[in-house]
């Protein structure tokens, strides 16, 4: 199953002008990323840092000083303005067909989620206490944020996430064959002995693209996905039904998963680690250990942002997303030892691996571990 740009009944209807507008934003982001982003470090050295030195008589030293020096470069300021504007344009380009199609998408959700022959299920919890930062912030500038929920048929958050995510990936140079779950499955199946999971959990499943992929790839497995956004989950549920794959979706907090001990033999997450606080992440790792059956595997994949390998100037350059793309935990994720969280949770042998992308340059970062077959650590 293709994960990106997959056709299904929950997608908003687009006109040729909508598609042209989206392609224009993809083209704009590709130019910004491939032609301009790489110049920022040069502008820092040739414009920002000299201006900072002229003003203070010394070189920038702290994170804040380096950030201020970057913004003393007029070329960097312009790149920053263009990049922010491009990100807002992305949401406009996908948002126009979403708003225009809202009634049709609500009707499709109603039809798919009440079909007598539906394959999966949706369990929402209106009393869930959501992590405040994520609940209140439009992460990635997604309009209304991940928890946008304006009624019991609102699926906009999922539509924004899937269609915006596709454009974001294409703007980074990714192709339609790109897939984070595809990378993970390829890595898991290349292990000695392969993998034949019977019960799979994806934490932070968002619009359910990866969850549906696991369900399609492992048809004999029972697949569950959890997220805290009701709008994401409604969309994910109907999307899976439209694609004919059985998935059970639940509204839960990543750090407080309401499943019995040893419920799963494969637990995964994709691009979640950088979206949650350190406390939630550590709780999630403890839950991962508790929920895995002995011999079970876990794989948490995310962006290859490991700040300990960067200079301060490089790290500040990569921190642009915190302020300008609403990524509150970007630096927390990049600076902290996420592999150590799995070790602290009880996994004796944690590996950091690079998962080569399927249809895009570069690779993803992932931490993987196996729960010992004789483990008695379940709490």
């Amino acid at each position, binding site marked *: 199953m293709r994960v990106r740009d997959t056709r299904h009944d929950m997608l908003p209807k687009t006109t040729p002008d909508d598609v042209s507008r989206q392609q224009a934003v993809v083209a704009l982001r590709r130019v910004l990323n491939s032609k301009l982003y790489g110049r920022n470090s040069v502008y820092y050295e040739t414009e920002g840092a000299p201006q900072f030195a002229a003003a203070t008589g010394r070189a920038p030293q702290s994170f804040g000083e380096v950030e201020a020096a970057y913004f003393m470069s007029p070329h960097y300021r312009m790149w920053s303005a263009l990049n922010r504007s491009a990100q*807002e344009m992305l949401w406009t380009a996908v948002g126009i067909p979403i708003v225009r199609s809202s009634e049709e998408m609500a009707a499709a959700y109603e039809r798919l989620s009440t079909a007598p022959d539906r394959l999966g299920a949706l369990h929402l919890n209106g009393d869930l206490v959501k992590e405040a930062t994520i609940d209140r912030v439009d992460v990635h500038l997604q309009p209304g944020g991940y928890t946008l929920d304006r009624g019991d048929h609102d699926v906009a958050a999922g539509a924004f996430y899937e269609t915006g995510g596709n454009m974001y990936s294409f703007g980074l140079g990714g192709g339609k064959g790109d897939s984070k779950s595809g990378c993970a499955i390829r890595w898991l199946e290349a292990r000695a002995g392969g993998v034949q999971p019977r019960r799979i959990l994806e934490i932070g499943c968002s619009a359910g693209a990866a969850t549906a992929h696991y369900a399609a790839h492992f048809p004999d497995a029972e697949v569950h996905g959890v997220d805290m956004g009701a709008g994401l989950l409604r969309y994910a549920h109907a999307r899976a039904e439209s694609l004919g794959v059985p998935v059970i979706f639940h509204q839960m907090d990543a750090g407080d998963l309401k499943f019995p001990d040893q419920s799963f033999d494969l637990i995964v997450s994709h691009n979640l680690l950088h979206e949650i606080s350190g406390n939630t992440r550590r709780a999630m790792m403890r839950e991962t250990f508790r929920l895995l059956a002995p011999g079970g595997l876990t794989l948490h994949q995310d962006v290859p942002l490991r700040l300990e390998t960067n200079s301060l100037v490089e790290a500040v350059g990569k921190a642009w997303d915190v302020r*300008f793309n609403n990524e509150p935990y970007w630096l927390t994720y990049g600076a902290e030892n996420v592999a150590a969280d799995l070790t602290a949770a009880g996994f004796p042998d944690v590996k950091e691996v690079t998962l080569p992308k399927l249809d895009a340059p570069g690779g993803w970062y992932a931490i993987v571990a196996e729960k010992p077959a004789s483990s008695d650590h379940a709490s």
Partner: protein
Amino acid sequence: MTSADVMAALAALPRGERPYSLDSLEAEMAVSMSLALAGELCVAFDRIRRLEEAVARLEGGEAEAFRARQADPEEAAIRQAEAEAMIARVLRLVLDARPALPRPSLAALG
């Protein structure tokens, strides 16, 4: 729902502050509007291309040949005049230069 209604509904969704990068808020807004116009120009170019292909099909020819067709001298002169008029409209503020009248400000109050 009209296209303007769609944009109004969409504009009501985002939350939070907007961080600016440039020294002037007005300049940042102008850059953002220019970028949006560039996007709309791409939409218009795509439409023109689709129309060219449709016309070429109706004529039983190729779109590339349709695009390569040169204007005759009389038509070229008309197009040139139209282009000059459009540039004049774009540069109206420069062509119609006048002495500046300062905006109300504390400095003007002395």
